[in-house]
Structure formats: structure tokens, C-alpha cells
């Protein structure tokens, strides 16, 4: 083996080592565990160990679980793993005003703390958007929807301003 082939071999091997590193970061199941947010089932499964530290909880908003108290601007809702019946869900309480996209079934990430009372105190509420971009059904629908909303806005605003 000449010096040059040996050098090339060493170069290839070191590249492979670097590639292996990247592959490990990519596919080493790191993402499974070292997560940006916990799903409700994962958090609940931790039991008492999840009480206390600030964590992010991510999932979907359970349909029919949104309770919005306008006077105290407190929001209660349940975050569930997925749409399957019987999926784990956690009750979240927050005084944050949610982003406008907040609705049933939307993906959310809540930052906050969990404790014995099994209520997740959210200090920050973020909404996740999917990679789908769709136009509303028809333009007419949108117009009607907007008009209705504006009417509603006007009445609520009028009611609130003394």
C-alpha cells in the first residue's frame, strides 16, 4: 500500500466517521426521547416525576373541552395525544390569551408546570400549524363569515365600552 492510497483510505474512513455521527444524530432515536414537547400520555406516565419542573406539553385540543371565561380571561381545555377514543388527555389551565388560530383539534404546545392536582398550569400557549395551505370553500363563504364576525365584534365591543 503506497502512502497515497493509505492517506486516501484514512480520509475516507474519517469521512465515514463524520457521516456516522450525522447519522447518529439523525436516526439514533434521539428525537424520540429528547423532545421539544411531551405528549400528554408520556407526561402522565411519568407520574410524580413530572410534577414541578417547567415543561412543554404538546398535543391536540380535545373537541368540546374549551372553556373560556371572559371575565377572568382564564382558559381551560384538554390536550390529548390524538383523535383516537380513549387517548390520554390532560387538563390545561392558562390565563394567556390564545392565538387566533386556537380551536378544537388544533395542535398546541403549552409551556408550564404540572402538579398533583392533575391540572397543567400553562404560562405560554403556542399553536401549531400543519403544512397544509387550503383556500376556504368559496369566496362567498369567507365574505359571509367575515361579515358575521365583524357584526359580532361590533356588538361585543359596544357592549363592553361604557
Amino acid at each position, binding site marked *: 500500500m503506497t502512502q497515497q492510497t493509505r492517506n486516501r483510505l484514512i480520509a475516507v474512513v474519517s469521512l465515514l466517521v*463524520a457521516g456516522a455521527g*450525522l447519522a447518529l*444524530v*439523525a*436516526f439514533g432515536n*434521539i*428525537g424520540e426521547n*429528547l*423532545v*421539544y*414537547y411531551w405528549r400528554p400520555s408520556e407526561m402522565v406516565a411519568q407520574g410524580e416525576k413530572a410534577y414541578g419542573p417547567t415543561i412543554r406539553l*404538546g398535543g391536540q385540543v380535545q373537541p368540546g373541552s374549551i372553556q373560556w371565561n371572559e371575565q377572568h380571561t382564564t382558559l381551560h381545555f384538554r390536550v390529548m395525544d390524538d383523535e383516537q377514543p380513549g387517548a390520554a388527555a390532560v387538563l390545561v389551565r392558562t390565563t*394567556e390569551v*390564545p*392565538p*387566533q*388560530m386556537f380551536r378544537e383539534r*388544533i395542535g398546541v*404546545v403549552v409551556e408550564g408546570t404540572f402538579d398533583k392536582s392533575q391540572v397543567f398550569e400553562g404560562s*405560554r*400557549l*403556542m*399553536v*401549531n*400549524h*400543519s*403544512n*397544509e*395551505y*387550503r*383556500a*376556504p370553500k368559496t*369566496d362567498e363563504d*369567507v365574505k359571509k363569515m367575515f361579515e358575521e364576525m365583524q357584526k359580532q365584534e361590533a356588538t361585543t365591543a359596544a357592549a363592553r365600552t361604557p
Partner: protein
Amino acid sequence: MSDLLKTVLQVGSAVAALASVGLGVWLGVKWAPPRSRVNARPVLLGMAALALALLVLGNWMGLVWTPSEREMGDVYRIIYVHVPAMWMAMLALVVNFACCVGYLLKTSWKTDALAEATAEVGLLFGTYGLVLGAIWGKPTWGTYWDWDPRLTAMAIMLVTYVAYMALRRFVEDPEKRAVWSSVVGIISFVNLPIVWFSVKWWRSLHQVQSTPKTVDPDMTLALRVNAWASLILLTLFLLHRYRTALATREAEVALPEALPTDVPGPNRASEVA
């Protein structure tokens, strides 16, 4: 807008952009050396006009012509500037990586100049793309910034390329600068695949990449027109920056007192000319 017109728009903008890239490469070879005899002015002005026209058209389509989105309402229109910017940044940095590897394999001032150009232009697109993303994040996610994997990786990558540009400023000897910045460029590039795939590998706030399947056809068309316009702009920027870098290099190598004495200056100069 009729289907025929849409097809024309789609194909036309793509052809215009790809032809511009071709023209840009050709100009890069013929016109970029500063003393070249090629009069590039008409071609350049034509490309600039085309880019501007496509950009205005694309922005008009994005702001006016396309319908609002089901959930995001009008705010989603930021996609037409955010996404092309990020694509162009990635593209420029990939070219930068190729140049860095190329320079280490075969020394050439042209590769070095192109590496300098791509890093700077990539940084430009990446930075304003990141700012646009943050602006988009406020109404949709409810926050300008969060340390999710995508955003974090992107921010880190941009800072590494800022460091790359700083390194280029701090080293006077052009040969050492070229070699070292190639090394740094290669190491910095490790972040790029991580940025791109972070949304697939890890849970994040940022959604995964959209495909034409997940985006309505009209929106896809508008996005494409914007992207092709950005591609022409990218080509123009790279071309000009490359020309500047090459001229600087030439001036540096032509002045022997600017160099350490042990570097063979003359044959370098002849290689460039």
C-alpha cells in the same frame, strides 16, 4: 385566471429563471474577470428587469390574486416571501459547501471568490428569511420566537456563517484565507442538513415542509413564481458579488507587498488573468 394562462405562467417563469441561471453561469465565466471584454450590460439589465417583473408579479399574486387561507386568513401570505428566501439561502450555502470542497481539492481563485459570494448572499437570504419567519410566527403560533429544533438550528447555522465571513475579514493572506475559510465552511455546513431535516427528525413547533399536495394549486403557482423570481435575483447577486470578490483577489495578488514573501505571487496572477 384561465388554466392555460396558469400553465403559461408556470412554465414561463420556470424557463425564465432557469435560462437566467444559465446566463448567469455563462456571464460568470465570460464577464466576471473585471477586465473582460464582454459587454454584459444588456444581458444583466434584461435579467434584472425580468427578476423585478417576476417579483412584482409574484408579490401581486401572493398579496392579491391568491385566496386567503382556511385557518390563517391572510397572514399566510408571508409564505410567498419567507419560503423562497429560505430556499435561496439553502441553495447558496450548498454551493458554498461545494466551493469549499472544490477549493481544497483544486486551488483556484475563482472557487474562492464564489465561496465568498455564496456565503454572503446565503447569509442575506437566510437572515431576512428568519426575520420574516419570526413575524409570521407571532400571529400564527402566538410567539415570535421559541427554541424549537428548527428555529434553534437555523439561528446557529446563520451565526456560524457570520463567523465564516468574519474569518475572511480577519485573514490578510489570500491563500491562507482561502484554505482556512474552506475548512470552516465545510465544518459549518454540517448544520445545514440538520436544519433541513430537523422538522422531520424531531418534534417541533415549525411544520414540516409543504409539498404541492398539501398546498392549493393557486397558492403553489404563486409560490413558484416568487421562488423563480428569487432564483434570478440570487443569480444576479451571486454574479456581482463573485465579480467583486474576484477583482479584490486579483488586486491582492497583484500587490506583492501585501503578501508574505514566501508566497509565489506572479504565477497566481497569471492563473487569474
